[in-house]
Every structure is written in structure tokens, then in C-alpha cells.
């Protein structure tokens, strides 16, 4: 059962700067929701609030019964909220398999003693979750790279590995921070297809920040637009495309730049 994510009146202030100003939106269960806006609009700040990295100055974020603004990052993760990062945040020297196994952290239990003594319970756990990691790697298309250190992989593959790691948490809500940034058009299309198939096969909610309007319009069910920390529009993609406020703030040049 996937709960709703309800962001209401979230304000974040850094000293004098208002990064988010009373922002509200709702991610319906099982939908793909896009958060867009020009650079500095507060999208990444919003993600950091949702994942417990930043604390909101005021306002609330509810995921089902849980209040996310009062939680630490690992507590948010324990609720089944996974995220990826705008700049890849994998461990470059660890193999893809190890990076994905970290995604199983919240679902596994073995601690210092059982891992150090290699107790059978720890070993069984590693085998069981290793099998699931392989399934997810195959689903995302990085199965061949499992034994390779992440740092040696091309950028586009690393982006996929990061998505795979988030999926390894068996999330109920997936936060994707610019999943196709820096990719070529071929990779973009593949990643968009992948996101669609994640949503279809797992039925989870996805909230994504993305600059590529083509992708947003294609895969999002609803869109929230931020500008200078304020919500300026919220609705279906085609409504958003026609919204004069949005066109003025952000989409003004979409006709000229075919992306």
C-alpha cells in the first residue's frame, strides 16, 4: 500500500535567503510527479527536505502517517523513501554489486559482531539479498557491470547504477534528482523508458526533478513548477505547458530549443 506524499507550506530559510517559500503539492500514490523550475528555484532544496537532509524552517511533509520534516535521513529511508542525486553519489572504488548491496542496508540486519564472526545468519542474509540485487541489476540493465568498480564505468551507466541502488531499497516513493542530466539523447530515451517501466512494474510513486522538458512532458502525470522558491503552477503537463506564468518564468524558449 503506497501512501500519499503531502507537502504543505514548507518554508526553508538559509540565514537571510528564502530557498523555499510556503511550497505545497501532493504526489498521488503510484503517480509520476515532476518538480520543475529554473536554476535556483529550490528544487534540490525541496528534495533535501523530503529526504531528511535539510530541516524545514516551517511546514510539514507527510508520507502516510509519518512526518518527514522531523526525521533524520536514515529514518526517512526506513519509511521506504529512496533517492538519487543530481551529481552521482556512489562509492567509486566499490563494485557495482557492493554499491547495490548498500541499498539493502535498511532491509538487512547483520551488525559488527555477526559480520566480523561471519555467522551463518549474516552469510545467509548476504546470499539472499545478493540474489535480489542481481535481479534489480538485470532489470535496470547493469547486470554485466556487477563486478566492476563504479568509478570505471561511463557516466550514463553510473546514473543507472544509482537508480538501481535506490530500487534496491524496495522503495514506496522514489525521488529522482535530474535522472537524465548530462546524458546524450539515446541515453535519455533509455532512461525515460526505464523510469516508466519502474513505475509500471513496481507501482511506486515517483517524484522527479528534471530540466529536460521533453522527458517531463512525456513521463509525468502531474507537474509542480517552482520559481524563486515559490510554487507558480501545479497541474497536468499540458495545462502547465499552456500556463502563461510558467511560460514567462521558465518555458519561454521551449519552441526554439528542441531537446
Amino acid at each position, binding site marked *: 500500500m503506497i501512501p500519499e506524499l503531502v507537502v504543505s507550506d514548507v518554508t526553508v530559510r538559509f540565514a537571510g535567503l528564502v530557498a523555499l517559500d510556503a511550497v505545497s503539492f501532493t504526489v498521488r500514490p503510484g503517480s509520476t510527479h515532476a518538480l520543475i523550475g529554473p536554476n535556483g528555484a529550490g528544487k534540490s532544496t525541496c528534495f533535501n527536505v523530503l529526504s531528511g537532509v535539510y530541516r524545514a524552517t516551517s511546514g510539514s511533509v507527510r508520507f502516510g502517517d509519518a512526518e518527514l520534516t522531523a526525521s533524520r535521513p*536514515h529514518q526517512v529511508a526506513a519509511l521506504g523513501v*529512496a533517492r538519487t542525486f543530481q551529481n552521482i553519489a556512489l562509492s567509486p572504488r566499490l563494485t557495482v554489486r557492493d554499491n547495490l548491496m548498500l541499498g539493502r542496508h535498511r532491509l538487512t540486519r547483520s551488525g559488527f559482531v555477526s559480520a566480523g564472526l561471519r555467522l551463518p545468519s549474516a552469510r545467509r542474509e548476504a546470499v539472499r539479498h545478493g540474489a535480489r540485487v542481481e535481479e534489480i541489476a538485470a532489470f535496470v540493465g547493469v547486470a554485466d557491470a556487477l563486478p566492476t568498480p563504479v568509478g570505471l564505468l561511463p557516466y550514463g551507466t553510473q546514473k543507472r547504477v544509482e537508480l538501481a541502488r535506490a530500487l534496491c531499497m524496495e522503495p514506496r516513493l522514489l525521488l529522482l534528482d535530474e535522472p537524465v542530466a548530462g546524458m546524450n539523447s539515446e541515453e535519455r530515451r533509455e532512461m525515460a523508458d526505464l523510469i516508466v517501466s519502474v513505475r509500471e512494474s513496481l507501482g511506486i510513486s515517483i517524484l522527479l526533478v528534471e530540466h529536460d522538458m521533453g522527458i517531463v512532458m512525456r513521463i509525468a502525470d502531474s507537474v509542480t513548477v517552482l520559481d524563486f522558491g515559490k510554487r507558480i503552477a501545479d497541474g497536468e503537463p499540458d495545462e502547465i505547458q499552456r500556463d502563461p506564468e510558467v511560460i514567462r518564468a521558465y518555458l519561454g524558449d521551449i519552441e526554439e530549443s528542441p531537446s
Partner: protein
Amino acid sequence: MSRRSRWITLGAVWGVVVVAAVVAPFYLEGFWLQTGLFAMSAAVGAIGINLLTGATGQLSLGHAFFLAVGAYAYVYLSTDVGLPTPLAAVVAVILAGVAGGLFSPIAGRLKGAYLGIATLALIFGGQHVLFNAEPLTGGYNGRAVPPMELFGFVFADSPGLVLLNVPFGALERLWFLGLLVLAAAAAFARGVLRGRPGLAMNTIRDHEIAAGVMGVPVARYRAGVFVLSSMYGGLAGVLVALVFQRAVPDYFGFLLSLDYLAMIVIGGLGSVAGAVIGAVFVSLLPQLLTRYSDALPLVAEPGSGGVSPAEAARILYGAAVVTVVLFLPGGLLGLATRLRRVIPRIKELRWPNSAPAPASRR
């Protein structure tokens, strides 16, 4: 190299290491046995600090303090409290962990170099206590360390014991105890590093925010690793006290902490093997220089005014640290892995025709 031949090579290397370690006390003189034992205790401590600094990215300059806790707790518990020595050793290690645990509210919150600076306080506080709490620590002159006694077997020179015509004194006996302790400590640390906690630790080092978001309670892990690492320090302290047979406060100073950092940097950050290699290197170097000081230029006899062997060793491994940082990311262990990758390629260059010959492969 095929998988099978790699296993065979690996097995052969380990076989040689194990056999050499077992026969060593039958051939080496006391001086080298003592050096080897110091290296073993250093290896245990270095594994501990590599868990903290190498694998988790948390600097500690205070590990000499935990060695002191282990060493003095062992002396106190066995001599003054009268616990059986093996029990005293175990409790000493636990006490070092408790000391680490008391510091863990700080160790969990500070990261990287900031923790390093905070741990300096442990060294100076510890030194003050060691010098002044005389009833407990014996003050400047330290205290004698009672020999370990395990199931009636005493790790001391008397009662005498002769094995294969070799008199087995304290050092020969301790040698095997040291090997066992080191092997167990290394195996445990390897299990931790390869398992779920190791992945969490590495991710905290590489990307703290990502670790948190993936469900790792970062502060709790930092504190936990600090406790584990201080227990390794305590164990190293017990070992070194048993070998040295006296615990003196001077030994557990700031320089010892720096030695440990030099070990893991030189050997290779973040791995058990790196810690052991670095510990052997840093422990052997001053002894080699002492032993052969008369044959070396620029190194004077101890006490004759010039650069003493101990100082020369510090300068040398200072240079080694700089060299490693500049040219050998991964330390000596990294160098070994790189050589292993390069050597087969050199062979192919030399015998370009021999590589693809499937018929002759069996």
C-alpha cells in the same frame, strides 16, 4: 591468469607465510622475535585504526590512548585486582572499548580531521593521568607486566622449556600467541569490512549524505566504529605490554599515534592487508636501522649525538608517507596489486607469440 592458477598462487603465498611464521621462533634470535612481536601488536592496532580512518574516513590522533588503556588495565586487573591473566586481557580490551564508547558522543558527531583534533585531547589527558595517577600506573617508571598464563602455560622464560633443541623463552612462546591474536583480529576485521557494516562505513567515507539517505544511521555507525577501533587499540596495548614486560607512560605518547597513521598510509588505507604491511614496515625500519647503524652513513650510534636510528627511521618513514601520498595511492598494498596486473603484461610483451596457444595450455 585463470581463476584456478590465481587460487594456486594465492594458496602458495599463504602457505609460505604460515610456514615462515611458524618456524621463525626456531631460527630467529631474541632481538628479531621481539621486533616481530612489536610488529604483530602494531598490526592489530593498525587494523583497528584502518577500520576507523581508512574505511570510514574518521581521523584519530588519539589511538595511543587506547593502547595505554589496554596495557594499564591489563596490569591493574591482573596484579591489583587479581583476575586470571586471560580474563584480565579480555576485560582490558572491553575497557578500551568502554573508553572509546565514552568518547563516542564526540566521535559520532565530528567528522574527518575535526575528530582527529578532538582526539588529541585523549593523548594529552591520558599522558597526564599516566604520569600522575601513581598508585594505578606507577608514574614515570611505569609498572611491571605480569606474564600471561593460559591453562597453566606461562608465557615467560621460566619454567624453562626446550623444543627441538631450541630453548623456548617468553618471546618464543608469545610469538605463537601473537600470531593467533593477529590472525583472529585480521579475520574479524575482514569480515566486518566485507559485510554489511563495511559497505556502510565505506559509503560514510565516500558520501556521507548518500549513506544517510540509503538508511545508514551515520552518527551511530561512526560511534560504533570508533568503539571497535578503540578495542583493537586496547588489544594492541595488551600485546605490546606482554612483549615489553613493562608499561611506561612515555611510550603511549603522540608519536605512537602518528606511527599508527604512518602505518596505514604507507601500507594502504581501508584494508586489513594494508594495515598489516604498513605495521610491519614501520616496526621493522627503526630496528633495522638500529641493528645496522654502524654500517649506514649519516646514522649515528644511539646516544652519540648524531641522528639516532630512531630519528633516522622517523625521517625515512616521513619520506615514505610523502612518497606514498604523491605517487602510490593505495600504499604498498596498492603497489603490489598494480605489479600483479603489470607483470603478466610485461611477459606478453617479451614473448609475443606465446600467449595464444590453446593446445599447449593443459
